[in-house]
């Protein structure tokens, strides 16, 4: 207790150097915990994007690739699934429901997804949450669109807004489907998934805007007006992928095998959880590199503290001699310095946690909007507490170096200080 009071008072006198040291450690702890937090939140955010879907089916490519483009709207499909195959697989006795997905168009940087109205009832995210409407209702008319929360927020759209879809991504004005504008009839509540950044229209709607297009080009002299298109057969010829719900999850492997062995067309069915596992395997290396870097930064922070303590040691010889003269043992001198290092590390860790929560609170809106990752402000996890404890322990261990030097020195010097 007495040693603690002395350590605190001594540090208070050197408060500027101490504050800098604490800040250095705090920033390194912020990085360490921030990386860990972001990693965890990104994982849980990814994992919560698809729940309640038993299989995802698309053209044959890689499982991770299919997962990325079908669910996360990252990258593009290499080829499509024919409508015929989709119908046949949807009709399998084990299949409870299917939701087709047709990608390839965009609206002002947001993906457009053609789907069926079942999407709004079948799609689940997080712990099995269903999609909710903040405003409006699912699409009904051919030229109706439902937009995700982020689309509405970024583009300031309300119900009734007329929007024009573009063919592909980032084309010029000639790539706009300007002749067939859509009307916003529904705005979804935020989900923290890629759905927030998606414009959803019916499959027939996707078909309608492409009736006068072939191979990504408008057919010259073949313009078909919006009203004319309504009269045409708008059954799609293909979809990009589709989500499958089974009557029993036990059938998942059987259906997966049936799809993968499908004779008419090379198809791939994936279990979302398994594909996510493979994805983590891929990004795990990068994650570990990031963790290694943040661990190094913590070590650098502690080295900074060690440097400060060692530099201070010569100036504090007198202090140690005075303490020895009034009866402090060499062990007290050791404890004083080790305790100081422990306090610095603990203060740095505590400040780092404060900074982390401040950063989380400040950035959560931005991160949710930009990356669809919901940062939670929950208490530190067990793993984070372990990391913090490790930082304090390492600080204490590092402090044993100057403490040992001071200990040896105060035994050798006795009460005589050579300045």
């Amino acid at each position, binding site marked *: 207790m007495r040693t603690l009071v002395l350590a605190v*008072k001594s540090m208070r006198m050197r408060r500027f150097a101490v504050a800098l040291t604490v800040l250095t450690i705090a920033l390194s702890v912020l990085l360490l915990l921030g990386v860990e937090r972001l990693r965890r939140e990104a994982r849980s955010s990814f994992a919560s994007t698809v729940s309640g879907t038993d299989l995802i089916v698309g053209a044959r490519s890689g499982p991770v690739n299919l997962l990325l483009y079908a669910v996360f709207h990252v990258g593009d499909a290499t080829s499509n699934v024919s409508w015929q195959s989709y119908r046949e697989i949807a009709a399998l006795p084990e299949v409870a429901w299917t939701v087709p997905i047709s990608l390839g168009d965009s609206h002002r940087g947001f993906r457009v997804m053609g789907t069926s109205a079942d999407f709004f009832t079948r799609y689940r995210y997080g712990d099995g949450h269903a999609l909710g409407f903040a405003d409006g209702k699912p699409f009904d008319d051919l030229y109706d669109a439902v937009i995700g929360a982020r689309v509405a927020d970024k583009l300031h759209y309300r119900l009734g807004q007329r929007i024009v879809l573009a063919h592909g991504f980032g084309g010029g004005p000639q790539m706009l489907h300007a002749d067939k504008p859509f009307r916003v009839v529904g705005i979804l509540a935020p989900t923290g998934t890629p759905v927030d950044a998606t414009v959803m229209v019916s499959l027939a709607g996707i078909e309608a805007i492409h009736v006068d297009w072939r191979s990504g080009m408008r057919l010259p002299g073949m313009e078909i007006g919006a009203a004319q298109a309504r009269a045409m057969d708008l059954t799609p010829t293909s979809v990009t992928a589709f989500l499958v719900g089974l009557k029993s999850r036990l059938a998942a492997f059987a259906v997966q095998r049936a799809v993968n062995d499908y004779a008419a067309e090379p198809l791939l069915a994936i279990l979302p959880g398994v594909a996510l596992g493979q994805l983590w395997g891929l990004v795990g290396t990068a994650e570990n590199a990031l963790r290694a870097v943040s661990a190094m930064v913590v070590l650098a922070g502690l080295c900074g503290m060690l440097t400060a303590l060692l530099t201070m040691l010569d100036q504090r010889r007198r202090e140690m*001699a005075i*303490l*020895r*003269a009034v*009866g*402090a043992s*060499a062990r*007290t001198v050791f404890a004083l310095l080790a305790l100081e290092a422990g306090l610095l590390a603990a203060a740095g860790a505590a400040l780092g946690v404060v900074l982390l929560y401040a950063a989380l609170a400040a950035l959560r809106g931005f991160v949710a909007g930009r990356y669809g990752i919901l940062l939670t402000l929950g208490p530190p996890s067990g793993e984070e507490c372990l990391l913090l404890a490790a930082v304090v322990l390492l600080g204490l261990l590092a402090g044993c170096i100057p403490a040992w030097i001071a200990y040896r020195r105060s035994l050798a010097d006795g009460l005589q200080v050579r300045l």
Partner: protein
Amino acid sequence: MIPWGLTPLLSCRDLRFAWDGRRDVLVLPHFDVARGERVFVCGPSGSGKSTLLGLLAGVGVPREGRVVLLDTVLSGLSSAQRDRFRADHVGYVFQQFNLLPYLGLVDNVLLGCAFSARRTACAALHGTPRAEAERLLAALGLDAAPLRRRSVAALSVGQQQRVAAARALIGSPELVLADEPTSALDAEARDAFVALLLAECRRNGSAVVFVSHDLALARHFDRIVRLPAPARAEAA
């Protein structure tokens, strides 16, 4: 001075001390201090004056011979026991820079009993240790109240030495050791300091071993001990 006990407070026999196993810097066949006695120790530079104080304080142990303080053989104690013994029974005044800059005036004095329950209890005999610290400061000519707000680093050297004396005296240790405490003071302040220190030691009943090479101060003391020059020590 009439000794208060039959055995001396401090008794040293055949002391030899050397740093790192080199030649002896201190050779002292016989050195006794009675209770309450005021001893002036002088000697040329390098004669081992500071070393002697270190041995008396129990910070170091002699290579040969023994130091007996209050019937306790210091070299028979462990290093931690000697530290506790020093905290309980010895007050120490350095040549200069006696104070911890991060403690206030009174807290610097209270540091003298911070490591000793015995001295804390002793200081609390007539009130609280804090009141005793303020009384000592006042007795040594430092009024704590106006100085309290100032950092101890802002005190003059003379004032700092008096705070150090108060720290050495608080809790009435049996032995006060002073290592050239006046060497940084001017002649006038020296006499005043020594007079105040000795008056308070007398009040406390503490013996004093005062090391200095300023022989003008010797007249304040009961006895003078001259340490031999290092050349003679080497020869011995």
